[in-house]
């Protein structure tokens, strides 16, 4: 009984112990906040990476790709059986993308991906990241009239409306130029509305044509003089949003998106064909939607076009045999299927020695990034736990002081018959009480902080005049957080244990005090 009474009195009267409580509290709160935010960011990143890459990817090292995707898909289904939820074939090729804005040509290095508009959306979260609500339901490579990114600030008018207005503007501009020019200009038949410098032919005539080149695809740039941009579109292309926009602040510090290119505009894409050695092929595409995954790497490099069109342009259709070529097959598996096991099964079926395919799970493909994030989280956790360890040493020092200060009281208790074990448990109990209070308050504070993290971030931004998460850098509307109950319990329990462990030595010292010497202590 006396132990609890003493502990409660010490808690009420020894204000120095508050310092220990506060340090435990801060350590616990920080750990919970950092863990939740890291878990949130990590999960967000995982979801996006996973959503884009599907589960397992069978890809060819050959720029020409792997033949007959249908046969491959059948074989994959045979190997993996019912575990397969969906499959799609894609072509992935490095490309150069150009568009004209305000008289200037903007050039981007992109990752051109040929997708099957029907099956691709079923194996990845691709459609969720498109801006037009109808495309989110079902992707179409045909330009839509309007309705892109409804309600989005700074988003320009897009779709056919934009295209018609632009065509009209170009027409008027061209007429004016014709009137002003002393020599009448002849419209360039090679490029619907904008002319590009001719692609140099590095290899000359010696370059063999791609193996399955379509007739007339030597110069795939559409050459129709009757192409009317007001009513016709090129093949559709979906561009990563960062290819089209610039995000910056105005003089008032407001963040604005400037779209240099929007659905309805035309772009030029140049990429290698599948010949030996490859030759550059160029074609015009009409932007039909934008893709915003909020993964800057993807948003600034991905451009999606229809698979069949890319196959034609790159010469990946063997008309004689009636088979096509693709770069990779993405496989989506059912929930809970062991991805590594599925990968191993496929690797056994398509041995690298024989086929030269790269068969990887999405985690393998993003291994370095995922492990870097994991490492970062681990190190942060260790560092932050050291804060609590420091708090533990604070408790140790405080308790030694209290034991010295209370030496005479310990002597009194012993003279009244309190056993050494009882004296020890006073200080261990005291440490436990401090730990529980510190961890308890810290947990509540940490959880409150996490719950209101966006308001807190706004508040910090308001105080410091700088936004915590600069929207020109981060695309997150809100800071993603995930509270893991297990992590919270571990952190809280760990801190209580540290507090108890820190009190053990002083408690032992108190228990071992000689009653007569303690009573004589001045």
């Amino acid at each position, binding site marked *: 009984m006396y132990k609890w009474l003493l502990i409660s009195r010490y808690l009420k009267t020894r204000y120095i112990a508050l310092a220990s409580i506060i340090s435990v509290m801060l350590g616990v709160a920080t750990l919970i906040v950092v863990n939740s935010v890291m878990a949130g960011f990590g999960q967000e990143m995982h979801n996006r990476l996973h959503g884009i890459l599907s589960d397992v990817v069978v890809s060819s090292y050959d720029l020409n790709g792997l033949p007959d995707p249908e046969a491959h898909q059948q074989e994959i289904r045979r190997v993996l059986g019912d575990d397969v939820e969906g499959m799609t074939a894609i072509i992935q090729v490095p490309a150069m993308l150009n568009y004209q804005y305000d008289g200037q040509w903007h050039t981007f290095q992109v990752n051109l991906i040929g997708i099957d508009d029907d099956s691709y959306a079923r194996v990845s979260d691709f459609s969720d990241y498109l801006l037009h609500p109808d495309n989110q339901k079902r992707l179409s490579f045909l330009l839509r009239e309007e309705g892109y990114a409804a309600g989005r600030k700074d988003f320009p008018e897009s779709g056919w409306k934009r295209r018609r207005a632009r065509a009209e503007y170009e027409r008027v501009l061209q007429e004016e130029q014709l009137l002003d020019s002393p020599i009448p200009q002849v419209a360039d038949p090679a490029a619907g509305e904008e002319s590009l410098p001719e692609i140099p032919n590095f290899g000359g005539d010696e370059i063999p044509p791609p193996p399955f080149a379509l007739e007339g695809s030597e110069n795939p740039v559409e050459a129709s003089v009757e192409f009317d941009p007001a009513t016709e579109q090129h093949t559709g292309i979906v561009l990563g949003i960062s290819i089209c926009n610039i995000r910056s602040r105005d003089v008032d510090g407001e963040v604005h998106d400037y779209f240099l290119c929007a659905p309805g505009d035309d772009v030029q894409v140049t990429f290698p064909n599948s010949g030996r050695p490859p030759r550059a092929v160029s074609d015009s595409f009409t932007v039909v939607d934008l893709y915003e995954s909020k993964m800057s790497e993807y948003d600034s490099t991905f451009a999606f076009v229809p698979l069949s069109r890319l196959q034609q342009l790159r010469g990946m259709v063997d008309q004689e045999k009636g088979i096509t070529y693709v770069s990779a097959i993405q496989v989506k598996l059912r929930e809970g299927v062991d991805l590594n096991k599925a990968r191993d099964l496929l690797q056994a079926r398509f041995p690298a020695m024989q086929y030269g395919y790269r068969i990887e799970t999405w985690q393998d493909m993003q291994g370095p990034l995922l492990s870097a994030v994991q490492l970062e989280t681990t190190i942060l956790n260790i560092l932050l736990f050291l804060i609590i360890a420091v708090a533990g040493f604070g408790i140790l020092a405080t308790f030694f002081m209290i034991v010295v200060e209370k030496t005479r009281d310990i*002597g009194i208790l012993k*003279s009244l*018959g309190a056993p050494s074990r009882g004296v020890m448990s006073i200080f261990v109990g005291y440490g436990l009480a401090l730990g529980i209070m510190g961890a308890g308050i810290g947990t509540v504070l940490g959880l409150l902080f996490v719950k209101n993290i966006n308001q807190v971030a706004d508040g910090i931004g308001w105080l410091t005049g700088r936004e915590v998460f600069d929207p020109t850098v981060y695309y997150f509307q809100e800071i993603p957080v995930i509270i893991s109950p297990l992590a919270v319990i571990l952190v809280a329990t760990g801190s209580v244990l540290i507090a108890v462990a820190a009190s053990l030595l002083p408690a032992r010292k108190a228990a071992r005090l000689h009653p007569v010497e303690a009573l004589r202590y001045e």
Partner: protein
Amino acid sequence: MSSVRTDLSTPTQGRTGPHQHRMQKADPARTGVLLSASGLEKTYHKDKVAIPVLRGADFQVHEGEFLSIVGQSGSGKSTLLHLLATLDQPDAGEIYFEGNRIDCLPTVSQDILRNRYFGMIFQFYHLLPEFTTLENVLMPTMIQLGVFRYWISKSRHRKRAIQLLEMVGLSHRLKHRPRELSGGEMQRAAIARSLMSEPQILLADEPTGNLDEAAGQEIMGILRTLNQQHNLTIVMVTHDQLLARQTDRIVRLAEGRVEAS
């Protein structure tokens, strides 16, 4: 059995004494002797210098007796009292309580002995500063009982503690902290505390050493009352010859031995 226990309600029912712990058999020749010591030796070591304090002290305390131990400073009075109270271990010699040897008991048994059979008061009162007078008096009972047993009989213990405080004239100071009391009041509170567990013997170490004469006399009055009216055995260490003369018997210590009694 002392009358302090019979007069006031008894909170400790069916207590188990230290005698259950490997105690030696009682010596029939010592009947009437409550506490006795024979051949007690104790040497303190300061750095590498040995300071012999007790060199074979023998003495006896009879039941119901008010005995004082006197001697010059450093003669070993307090050391003797600490040894009797099992607060310290003798280097040689034996101590018997009610005929049972207590100096070689396990620590746990000695704790029980101090808690339930011995009452102790000190020159510097030794009250716990964080607690009120009442809580200080209740402390031996709180040490004795677990949380549950204490709580179910809390009102009984409080009643007894208040009675004891009334007896020493401190009923108006129940909620005061030690620092709010005078020296005499603190010593009276300490006496009440020492009586809380109905001790069979009260060991007092210079109880008036820190008090003025009036307060000292007041304390002596209480001790005499306890001895005479409640038949409580008291051993008091003092250097004050006048106070010693007020007791039944005087034991003189000189150079670590009992000179005369």
